[in-house]
Structure formats: C-alpha cells, structure tokens
C-alpha cells in the first residue's frame, strides 16, 4: 500500500527556509502571506496488509531515519 509521511519542523523551531520564502513572497507583492513553514511529503510503497502493523513499522522508520525527532514531527497517513 502507499503510505504518506509528512515531516515538518516542530511548531516552535525556527524555519530559515520558510522565512526566506516569506520574504521573497512579500517582495513580489504577496504581502498578505504572513508566514511560511516548509516540510516534506514522502510517499512510501509498503508491503503489508494489516494497517496497524504497517503504521508501526513506518513510524519506527520515521523515528530512526525519515524525521529528526529532536526538531521535527511527523504524521503517517494510510490509505
């Protein structure tokens, strides 16, 4: 099945990339866009039937590799 993983910086962590994008947007006239946060969307093809088993494996992969739990949080979405 295809599993969606969303990784983003924790809410209170500074996002220099998002801030740089916000500045560019403001410079191009999108002054109403007051904040930008940039994350990652990953689509994983996973072999497995039982949703809970798949979820727990993908979450383990997130903690170990796909996200940096010190500064990022992740969300796993099954079909």
């Amino acid at each position, binding site marked *: 099945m295809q599993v969606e993983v969303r990784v983003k910086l924790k809410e209170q*962590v*500074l996002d220099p990339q998002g801030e740089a994008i916000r500045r560019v947007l403001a410079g191009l006239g999108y002054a109403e866009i007051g904040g930008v946060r940039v994350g990652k969307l990953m689509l994983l093809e996973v072999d497995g039937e039982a949703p809970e088993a798949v979820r727990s494996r993908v979450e383990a992969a997130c903690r170990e590799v796909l996200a940096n739990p*010190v500064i990022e949080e992740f969300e796993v979405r099954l079909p």
Partner: protein
Amino acid sequence: MSWDAPATLDLAREHGLSEDEYGRIVTELGRVPNLTELGIFAALWSEHCSYKSSRAYFKRFPTAGPRVVQGPGENAGVVDLGRGWVCVFKMESHNHPSFIEPYQGAATGVGGILRDVFTMGARPVMLLDSLRFGDLDAPRMRHLVDGVVRGIGDYGNCVGVPTVGGEVDVHPGYNGNILVNAMCVGVARADRIFYGRASGPGNRVVYLGSKTGRDGIHGATMASDVFDEAAAAKRPTVQVGDPFTEKLLIECCLELMESGVVVGIQDMGAAGLTSSAFEMASRAGCGLALDLSLVPARERGMTPYELMLSESQERMLLVATPDNVGAVLAICRRWGLDAVEIGSVVAEPEVVATFAGRPAFRLPVAPLVDDAPRYERPATPPVPAAAVTLPPLHDRDLAADLRALLASPVFASARPIWEQYDHSVGASTVVGPGGDAALQLVPGTRIGLAATTDGNAVACSLDPFHGAAHGVAEAVRNLACVGAEPVGVTDCLNFGSPENPAVMGQFVAAVDGLAEACRAFEVPVVSGNVSFYNETSGSAIPPTPTVGMVGVVPELRQRPRTRWQVGDTVYLLGPVEGELGGSRYLQVALGLEAGPVPPVEYEAQRHTAAAVRDLVRLGLAAAKDLSDGGLAVAAVEMSGGTVGCRLTLPAGVSPVRTLFGEWSGAFLLATPAAFEPALERACEGLALTRLGVAGGAKMTVVVGRKHVVEEPIADLAALREGSLAWLSEA
C-alpha cells in the same frame, strides 16, 4: 503558572538553584522574586554564565603583556598585531547541544563564536574547530561525526568565513560526550574596537536581528510541570541557526560600528536577552529600563519569562544615543534586519522591565553578575600516572608499529572533514587545513596571522598538569612551523562535574599547567570558556583543556613550505630521543595508557621555536614539529605521501624512542642543499642532527646497517586515509 507568580524553593530547585542560592536571592532582594526574576537568577547564576566553580582560578593565568589590548572579561580578547591592526579571538564549547542534535548544535556553536568576535568590531576571518569523538565504529558516533562536520561546514560556508584549521582526536572516553570547541579569529583597526557596555543614561537600547522564539528556554534544567506538558513537549531544546541572517548581521553590525552610531553592542548568546542586558549594564555601571512588549516575537502569547530566557540565534543588543537611533534603524532596515528600540539606559544600576503596561521585574545588576556566587569546590589533586614496566622494545618490528599507528583512528587524516569546509573564501588563506597552523594575510596588508588549536586527551588524562602544559608548547611549535610568533591564547576547558573533587582536581591542575606554560612562553591568555558537566552516567570525559593560539608574522614575504622536496637535506632540531610515557606509541602500538608525561623543557623549546620561526620566515627550511607519533609520523606528514626519504639514526640512540618518542619539542627541518650552511649557522648552539635526504618512493630508516623501516611512502600515507573515509562516502 503565570510568569509573575511568586517563586518557591521547589521552583528554585527545578531551575537548578540550591537552597543556599535561593536564600541568597531572597536576602539580596529583600523579598520573594517572581517566576521571571527567578528564571533570570537561575540563568545568570548557572555554571555556564557565572563560571561559579571556575572563576576563582582564572587569576592564575597570565593575562597582561605588551600586545594585550583587552584581556578576559569582554566578549573576546584583543591583541595588537602592529601597524594599527588588532586581532580579536575566542574559543567556545558547544558540547551538549552537539551531542543532542549534532548538525544544529555544531552550526549554532560556530554562529555564537562568530558573534562574540564581530560584536567587538572585528571582521571574522578564520574559524577553527577542535573536535573530540568516541569510538568511530559505533553507528551513533558516526552519525554525530557526520552531523557535526556538516553543521560546521554549512554554517561557515554560508556565512563566508573560511574554516582553516583545527584538530580531531578520538578516544573511548568521549563515547558518551563528544566535544565541539569552535574558535574564531577576527581583525580590526586598533581604533575601531567596540565593547559590550551600556553606558550613558538616557541612551537608547536597540534590539537587532532575528525574532525571539521559544527556543532553548532554560534547556534541560526547566522542569516540565512549570508550564503545561503539551507546551513542554513542543519546546525545542536545540536552536536552529540561520547563517544567512548571521551574514547580514555581520555586515550590518560592522557598518553600524564603522558609522560611529553605536555606543556599545553585545550578542545574545547563552541566556539571550538576560545575559546581554545584565552584562552590558554591569560593565558600564549603569542600568536599563526595558519594555518587553516591544521585543520582536516569533510566536503569539510569549511571556516576559520566555522573552528574557529564549536562546533564539542571530540576535544582538546595542546602545545608541537618542540622536543616532534613527540612523541605526535606517542601517538595519537597509540590511533587511528587524531592529526595534526597546528601552533606555538609566543611572541606577538595576534592570527594570515592563510588559503590557505593568511591571515585569526589577533586579539590581551587581548580585546577578559581579557578585554572583563563586565556589572554591573541594579538589583532590590528581596523581600523575607513573611509569610501568614496558615489554622489551629492542626487537620490535618498527615498520609494523608505524603502520599500526598510521592505521589507527587516532592518526586518521582529517581530510574527509576539512574537504567539506570552504577554507579559502575571502582569498586570504596562505596555509589552510592539513598543516600545523593556519596562516592568512590580514586583508590589504603583508601581516601574516596564524592560528592553531591543540590538546592531547591521553596525556591530560594521565597527567593534567603536564598534559595541559604540553598543549601550549605544541601550539607554540605549530605556529613556529609557519613562521609565526605567538601573541595570545584562548582556552576551552572541558571537564566532568565540578562537584566531583577528582574532576575539580584535574581542572585545577590543568589550569596551573596552562598558566605555567603560558608564563614560560610569555603568551597571555586573553579569552576562554569553561565547559563542565561533560559526563554521562557518572563517567566523566578525559580532562580536555583545548588551547587556541594566535600568532603573527610581521612581514609575510613567502608562503611557508610544509612538505619536503626531492633532494632536501633532512635535519632534526632538538633532542634526538623523546619519551614514551604518555605517548601515542604506548597507546596504539602497545595498548598502554601509561606515564610518566615529562615536564616541558621551556628554555630549550623557546630557543628551538625561535630558530625555526626565523628559518621559515627567511624561506630557508620547511619545518614540522614532532608531536603525536613522534619523528616517524612527522616524516610521513612531511612527505606529503609522495616524496620518500632515507634517514639514518645516530649511533647509540634507542630507535623506538627516537622514532616514536614524544615531548622533546623537536622539529624536522628540510632544506635544499644550497641552504645547508645558512641553516646550520642559524641553529648554532642548538642540538642539530643531520638525518638524511628526502627523495625516492620509500621511507627508509637505517639504524647501524639495518633498515628498520623500508616502506613505500604512498602506502604509509594511504593508511591514514582509511579511518574517516566513510565520511566522504556518506
């Protein structure tokens, strides 16, 4: 709990304060502080900000000298380079953050040390990093090495300051606590130095740089139940750096200072707005009145507690006269940086803050800064490691021993590390990483500015006093190899818990060793940093005093050679034999960490270093000092992996002690045949031994008629490339 709720002893304890310290706060104030005031006391009285366990020992360092413009006590030390130029430098640790989040921890360490230097009005021109790691085979350790190196490289490269040198050591003693010590050197015109002083009542206080977020508020000491738990889980313990904002900050601050519109300026480092406000007030003997509602906040609903204690990166606090505030804000705006007037300087020595129209706190300056607690903690003097009975050494296979040393992680080539650093940005680097010391031209002049970092974990754990002293001696020799005369020292003292008398004993011994050596070599200590509590599960790191030394070449005429060339005559300047106690040979070849580490022969080392300095400046010789691994490893380094040598050891010496002994303070010198008479004349009165010639594809060492080493030089050099090769492959 509200930010202005009254404090309690329990809250004080959760902030890392002792009962005594809390009692003292209540006595000083004559009342119970509120939560924000308690947080401010806890931050400024923390070991990190107050140096409460170490400050009493700093007076043992020599801090004066004819070149010293500013000794310890400011954001960085300042030393005169001549011709109207000064250099500004400091080294600082970022050990704990780098262990939690290696990339951001190391990156923000670099950012912090840069700010300490440019806040003095100097343009940062060099970065160096002294790194200590544990066993490189552990996956977690490789993750740390990779993150730290990328963090340093990315931040330095983005901000446009070259990372030109440093050192790496590996020892199992760092498995639970790695060390990241970053050093920055900047240059300025002597009449353009600025200080972190908030002087002149009526002057305005301006906040400059990134907005304040909830980063790193009180780090790990903050107990989660002070605020609600959901918030605590989200509160990051690590700060994220933004090198592009830092670059803007550098240029903006230098322009502000150049324009003469600033009275005083300081970066917001550890304890953020709290430390910058109180320290600037303390140095000027004044106070500040702040309106915290004006502080630019990254998030909604931030409280005075959070605004005062946030450790968000890339922020500065500056003071300007009322007439100049407009000009200050205009310059900041031009650089695209947030700048806001948040208060003014007052005559009364206290910091008073309001928030949303009501009083937030009122605290006297002196008890928080100058009169912060100081402890002379119990210290058990370390017993220097004694000699052990060594196995017979006369029939050792010295070629095999040399190969074992070179293949060990201790001697790993740092190339995979420094290849990730931009070491030539700025186009002033003369000698970059991989040599003994880094050498640069002060932009627009012929003044050569050199810097090195040195320390030896094994020697310091065996004998903190002599180990620390040898670190200073090695730094002096490294500078001599590029022709530079030492002008100042910054140190980073990394130890376990000061509450452990054995650790405190190591600390005091190391301070005394550094102080003795700095006095003997006449190099003042002008800045530094102490990092305690480097321990995990009760196991402390090896005592690690890191020495950062800066040197000057008054008139740099040519690039010093660091390798020998085909046909060069090779000499040894200094004692022929070294000592094996505390040597890398015992550690790696015999698996022994044993003493004794001999004392430094200051008098002899001063003379040899001075001779080498002159030879290098005149272009008469390439020089390499003997340190880790002794003569044998120095020869492999001088070969550059391409040009071999044939060296004959003098009759009657111990081959092991000659090839692998350390601590002698000797140098290998290589010179073209035509310069031999000049070199010998320059070394008159010193112990100079002719060892042989450079050339061929092999490194050959002859004792009597026996070739004790005969190895292809390329193979030997390649052995060093193995230990960190995975880093470039990653």
